[in-house]
C-alpha cells in the first residue's frame, strides 16, 4: 500500500469537509474557552453513522462471543482482509481531526478505545451491555483512570489506590490525576490494588466501573495544561466509595491485568502515529502556503535555502509517518497483529516527528507562528504530549531496547 484507496479517499474527503464546516469554526471555543468537545464528537458520530456501526458491531461481537467460532466466521474474516480491512475507517477520522483539533481525538480515543475497550476485553456480557455500548456509540463519555500523583510510567509499581473487601462489596479509596475526560465522564474505569493486608507489590490489580455521582466519588474540574485544550483533563478523588461485585470488571479478582494489555498498547500506539500524521500534514500544508506567499528580502521565503531545508525535513517526516500508518493498516488487514516493540518504535518516531515538524512550523512562520491565529502554535503545544502519554518516549525506547537485547 503506497496510497489511500478510493474508498479511503472518500472517507478522508467527507471527514475533512465535516471538520472544516463543523469543527474549525469551534476551534477558538474548544482551544481557548471551556467548551467540552463531546457535542461535536457526537455530531461526527451521527453524521457518518459511526454510532450505528458501533451498535451493529457490538451486537455482532456479543453474539459471536456467545457462540463457538465456525468455519463461516473464518470465511468472512478472509473476505474482509481481501478488501483491505476496515482499519482506515478508524484511522482516517483520527488523522483528519488532528489537522484541526487533536484534543478531540484524545477525548474520543480515551472514551472509546480505553474505557469501552477495557470493558469489552475484561468485562462480563452483562457489564458490556450495561456500560460499554453507550461508550462505543459515544452516547456516554468514559474515562480510564490509572495515573496517580505519585505514579506515572511506573503505574503499577507505585499505585496507592486500593479496594478493600467488605462483605459482598468493596470499599474503594485513592486519588487519580491527569485523567482525560475525568471532569465529565459518565463512566470511569478505576484501576487499583486489592488490599488484603499484604505488601503493596504483592497485591492484585483490579478494575472497577464507576458511575458519575456515586457517593464518595469526586470528579474535579478541568486542569490547565500546555496543549490539547479541547480534551478535558481532571483529577478523581475516591473516599470510601462502595462498589458491588457487579462493578468489578470480569466479576472476579483473578483476571491477570497485564494479559491483553500489550495488544491494547499496540492499538493505542498506532493511534498516536495517525494523530502525528494529521498534525504533520496540516503543518506542512500551512508552511508550504506560507513559504510561497510571504516575501522577505525581495523574494518568497520558500526561495531561501534554510526554509527549503525545513520543508524538506517536514516532507521526509510526513512520508515516513504515512508509510508507518500504511504498514499498520496493511498488517491489520492481513490479520497480523502489530507486536509491541514495533508499535513502540512507531510511536517513538512519529511522536517525535510531529513535535519537530510542529515546532519547525512555528519557526518557519516567525512571529506569526507564535500567535494563536496562525494555528501552528496550537499544533506544536498539542504535539508535545504525544511524546508523553500512551507511554513516554523513554518507555518506548526501553521497550525497543529490551526486545533487541533479549
Amino acid at each position, binding site marked *: 500500500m503506497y496510497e489511500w484507496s*478510493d*474508498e479511503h479517499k*472518500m*472517507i478522508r474527503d467527507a471527514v475533512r*469537509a465535516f471538520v472544516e464546516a463543523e469543527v474549525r469554526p469551534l476551534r477558538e471555543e474548544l482551544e481557548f474557552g471551556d467548551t467540552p468537545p463531546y457535542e461535536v464528537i457526537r455530531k461526527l458520530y451521527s*453524521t*457518518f453513522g*459511526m454510532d450505528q*456501526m458501533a451498535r451493529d458491531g457490538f451486537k455482532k461481537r456479543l453474539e459471536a462471543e456467545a457462540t463457538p467460532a465456525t468455519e463461516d466466521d473464518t470465511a468472512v474474516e478472509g473476505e474482509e482482509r481481501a478488501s483491505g480491512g476496515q482499519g482506515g475507517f478508524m484511522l482516517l477520522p483520527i488523522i483528519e481531526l488532528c489537522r484541526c483539533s487533536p484534543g478531540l481525538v484524545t477525548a474520543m480515543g480515551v472514551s472509546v478505545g480505553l474505557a469501552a475497550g477495557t470493558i469489552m476485553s475484561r468485562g462480563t456480557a452483562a457489564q458490556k451491555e450495561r456500560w460499554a455500548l453507550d461508550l462505543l456509540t459515544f452516547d456516554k463519555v468514559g474515562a480510564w483512570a490509572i495515573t496517580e500523583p505519585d505514579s506515572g510510567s511506573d503505574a503499577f509499581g507505585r499505585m496507592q489506590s486500593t479496594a478493600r473487601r467488605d462483605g459482598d462489596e468493596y470499599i474503594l479509596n485513592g486519588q487519580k490525576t491527569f485523567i482525560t475526560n475525568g471532569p465529565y465522564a459518565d463512566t470511569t474505569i478505576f484501576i487499583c490494588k486489592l488490599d488484603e493486608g499484604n505488601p503493596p507489590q504483592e497485591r492484585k490489580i483490579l478494575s472497577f466501573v464507576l458511575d458519575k455521582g456515586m457517593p464518595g466519588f469526586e470528579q474535579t474540574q478541568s486542569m490547565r495544561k500546555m496543549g490539547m485544550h479541547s480534551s478535558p483533563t481532571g483529577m478523581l478523588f475516591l473516599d470510601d466509595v462502595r462498589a458491588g461485585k457487579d462493578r468489578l470488571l470480569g466479576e472476579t479478582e483473578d483476571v491477570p491485568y497485564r494479559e491483553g494489555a500489550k495488544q491494547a498498547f499496540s492499538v493505542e500506539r498506532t493511534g498516536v502515529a495517525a494523530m502525528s500524521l494529521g498534525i504533520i500534514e496540516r503543518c506542512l500544508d500551512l508552511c508550504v502556503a506560507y513559504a510561497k506567499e510571504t516575501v522577505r528580502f525581495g523574494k518568497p521565503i520558500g526561495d531561501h535555502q534554510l526554509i527549503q531545508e525545513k520543508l524538506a525535513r517536514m516532507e521526509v517526516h510526513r512520508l515516513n509517518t504515512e508509510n508507518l500508518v500504511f504498514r499498520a493498516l496493511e498488517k491489520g488487514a492481513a490479520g497480523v497483529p502489530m507486536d509491541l516493540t514495533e508499535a513502540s518504535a512507531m510511536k517513538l518516531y512519529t511522536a517525535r516527528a510531529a513535535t519537530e515538524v510542529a515546532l519547525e512550523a512555528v519557526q518557519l512562520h516567525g512571529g506569526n507562528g507564535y500567535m494563536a491565529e496562525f494555528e501552528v502554535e496550537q499544533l506544536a503545544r498539542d504535539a508535545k504530549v504525544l511524546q508523553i502519554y500512551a507511554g513516554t518516549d523513554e518507555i518506548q525506547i526501553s521497550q525497543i531496547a529490551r526486545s533487541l537485547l533479549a
Partner: protein
Amino acid sequence: MNIVVTVKQIPDPAVPGELNPDHTLKREGKLILDESDSYGVEMALQLVDKAGGGDVILVSMAPNGEVSGLRTALAMGAAKAILVSDDALHGADALTTAKVLAKCVERAGDVDLVITATEATDGYTGTIPAQVAELLDWPSLTFSKEIEIADSKAKVQRQTEAGYDVVEAPLPAVVSVTAGVVEPRYPSFKGIMAAKSKPVDQVTTADLGLGTDDITPNQKIVSVEAAPAREAGEKIEDEGDAYERVVQFLEQLKVI
C-alpha cells in the same frame, strides 16, 4: 417513488482547468461530483424517504468510464446509476447531452420524477433541464427551491427575483433545483463501503439506440477568450456629498 437525478462529473473546480485544441475542457483526469448536483441528490433522497419507498437513480455522461463522482452520490444513498461513456460524445453540445440523458431516463424504466441542477459548474448552459423535459414530452418545472409531491403532482416553489411562484405539474415531470436549497448530507461510512458494490450500468450511445446523426453536435465552440480584466472602480472624494453619490450608485445598480 422512483426519481432520476442527472449528475455531472466535472474536473475539480479548485484545480485550474485546461482546454483541448478544439476548445473543449480537458476531462482526462479524475472527475468529481458537480456540487450543484449534490442538492438534487439530497432532495431526491428526501422525497423518496418521505414517499416511504422507491429508488434514487443517477444518470451521467462522462468520458473514460469515470465513476468517482457517481460513487460520491451512491455513497450518499442513491441506489444505482446509468453511465454513458462513449468517445463519440466528445464535444457534445447541450442538445446532444440532453438526448443522451433523456434516453437514460427511459432506460431507467418506471420513473416518476427527474431532478436536475439549474446548470453545471463547468459548462453553465443551463438549457439541459428544459431540453430533457421536451425530449421526454414531460412538463418542466425550473428553478425550484422546494418540491412537494402529492396526488401524482409535483408542486414547486419556483424562485424569482422577488420571492417565489408556486407552480405545479402532473407527474412524471422534470424539475430543476437551485443550489443551496437543502444541505447535502455527508456520506456515511457504511454508505461509502456500500457504494462500491452498487450497480453502475455502463452504456454507449448505441446501447441507448442513438445513431451518429442523433449525436452530431449542432453547436461547436469556435473560440475562447479570456475574461476581460476587472476595471478599476470609481473613487469618490468626500466633500460632504459622498453619501448622495453612493446612494445614486446603488440606485443605478438597482440594489436599493
